């Protein structure tokens, strides 16, 4: 939207940031709704685990909602994403049905992967989510092939690949960025820098201060943004998606964020302080956005609570759906090892 059109259609809000002003009410409502859906999904998943309803482990993205929702906001339904082991948020952001996600999480036959993948491998292929990935940096080389495929089929799709800060020290990251750049592939690389690769502080693991700095080695734009600021993430993702779609090539976007929970269920937070976690909790993406929207009179408190309650209801019914779903049959164990 151009500045002049925004002025015609929106009330004048002298203190509103341009990044936020660029998002209309319907877009913000949908984005906030998805952020709440992700938060509730993660909290409900955690509670289900605590109550022994599910086995295995999980990697929660509580605190990283703005990055998932903001990055995918400029994407179309037929665009692709590739996700990570901390991928519930990306999946919901791309438009997946939380009920089928929960069913997968519970290992049920009507989950997205018929219970064969679980939390770390949820894929919604029809919705353009080509899968979470249990291997750090596993999705990055795959994104190169998706980009090649889009180009060869002369489509105008975009592939957005998510990865954490830890992935940027894998060879796969460097091989993928290099190939995407030499072939000008329609890829947006989104690094969710949540400060830690399990326990390893990125400052101890990387010689440059920002992941985005690494883009210069591959002659592509590298943009670092406050990943807990939805509007800022959208403002960074939009030109990156547009550049990819128009044949301009890839971009590396770094969303600086924080996971408020541990790496996985075994994490005792020995590598970070309570104070640090508390500081980031005050910087919570959902709370920040809501506060700003209230201050700008974009939404009333009642409306915000209604959005949150609707998200809770969706997740409650998703959980009920998962619990009521059938388990796979052991006789089907070796089904789908090979495609026919």
């Amino acid at each position, binding site marked *: 939207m151009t500045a002049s059109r925004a002025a015609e259609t929106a009330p004048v809000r002298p203190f509103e940031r341009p990044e936020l002003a660029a998002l209309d009410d319907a877009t913000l409502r949908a984005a906030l709704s998805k952020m709440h859906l992700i938060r509730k999904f993660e909290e409900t998943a955690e509670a289900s685990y605590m109550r022994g309803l599910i086995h295995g482990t999980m990697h929660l993205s509580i605190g990283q909602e703005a990055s998932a929702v903001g990055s995918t906001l400029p994407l179309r339904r037929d665009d*692709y994403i590739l996700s990570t082991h901390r991928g519930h948020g990306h999946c919901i952001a791309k438009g997946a049905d939380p009920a089928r996600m929960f069913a997968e999480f519970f290992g049920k036959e009507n*989950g*997205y*992967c*018929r*219970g*064969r*993948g679980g939390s770390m*491998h949820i*894929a919604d*292929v*029809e919705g353009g989510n*080509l*899968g979470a*990935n*249990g*291997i750090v940096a*596993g999705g*990055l*080389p*795959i*994104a*190169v*092939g*998706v*980009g*090649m*495929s*889009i180009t*060869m*089929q002369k489509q105008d799709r975009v*592939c957005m690949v998510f990865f954490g800060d830890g992935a940027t020290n894998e*060879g*796969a990251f460097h*091989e*993928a960025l*290099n*190939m995407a750049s*030499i072939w000008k592939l329609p890829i947006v690389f989104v690094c969710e820098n949540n400060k830690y690769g399990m326990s390893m502080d990125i400052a101890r693991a990387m010689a440059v201060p920002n992941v985005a700095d690494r883009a210069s080695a591959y002659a592509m734009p590298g943009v670092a943004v406050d990943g807990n600021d939805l509007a800022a993430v959208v403002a960074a993702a939009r030109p990156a998606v547009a550049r990819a779609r128009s044949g301009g090539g890839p971009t590396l976007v770094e969303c600086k964020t924080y996971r408020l929970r541990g790496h996985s269920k075994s994490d005792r937070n020995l590598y970070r302080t309570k104070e640090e976690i508390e500081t980031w909790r005050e910087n919570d993406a959902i709370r920040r956005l809501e506060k700003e929207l209230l201050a700008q009179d974009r939404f009333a408190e009642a409306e915000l609570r209604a959005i949150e309650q609707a998200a809770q209801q969706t997740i409650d019914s998703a959980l009920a759906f998962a619990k009521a779903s059938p388990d796979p049959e052991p006789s089907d164990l070796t*089904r*789908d*090892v*090979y*495609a*026919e």
Partner: protein
Amino acid sequence: MPNDVAAPEVGTRELSYAEAIREGLAQAMEADERVFLFGEDVGVYGGAFGVSGDLVHRFGAQRVIDTPISELGIAGAAVGAAITGMKPVLELQFSDFVTLAMEQIVNQAAKIHFMFGGKASVPMVIRLPGGSGTGAAAQHSQSLEAWFAHVPGLKVVQPSTPHDAKGLLLAAIDDPNPVLIFEHKLLYKTKGPVPAAPYRVPIGQAAVRRAGTDLTIVGSSIMALRAGAAAERLAGEGIDVEVIDLRSLRPIDFPTIAASVRKTHRLLVVYEGVKTMGIGAEISAMIAESDVFDFLDAPIARLGGADVPLPYNPVLEKAAVPQEDDIVAAARRLVREGHA
């Protein structure tokens, strides 16, 4: 495209193994625009072993693509292209370099169809020049095919003739699963009859190369040829050998092996890969576990690669893998003395 399992008609024109593969690639690319070839130096260089030859001039650099030296990256790119509608054929310059690409082949390509509950398939082909005998020493001479035959979700084939090299390639390109083709470097220049029209050699079907009554020798790739030559020499001594060319390691054609051993009552398995934990162990165990065990008149014997890295010195290099003389000697002992 017909299946062709019979020996070519007399008078069929002859091609080298490398030419047969090139013809198969060209026919697949002509028939289906989703098929493309990529890898290190497959373009104007023509491939390290001359297999791609002039294909870049016939199909252009968009379909015969030179890649950076990034084995992990290009293996992942094959996965990404395959799950989004293309049919990539990747050449890994030496099969040894597959060690750099293990993650994408084993964790991603092999598992995506199953892990996603059958919602995506990975129709990709990887061509891998393998084997010893060229003086290329320890990092350019290995036979690693058994590693991949150990992985559910992959298919593994090993052609021994120009006819099978073309037919297995076309079958692999048609297959909706990831297929690894281990080509043998010593065979690229060998000649044999190859039908001009496209045809498939079905994956999972062994070939009985020579019928016999005293002993079954099972081998694949160059070992099937050495077994055949050994069988002709043994015939002069009154030992009648049945030779089975496996052609596929996964899936393996156990019924053909079993039927042969029921008839001959003796089994010798010959393979170039390291003997310990190799293909011979699997075939031996399959026989030992089955009712065919009761038909054996002698212990099963294995002739495999020595438990050493491939040496550079040509005498040592030859000593490290079964040669024709070794096969003759082992077969003779097995028939005459009841043990190898």
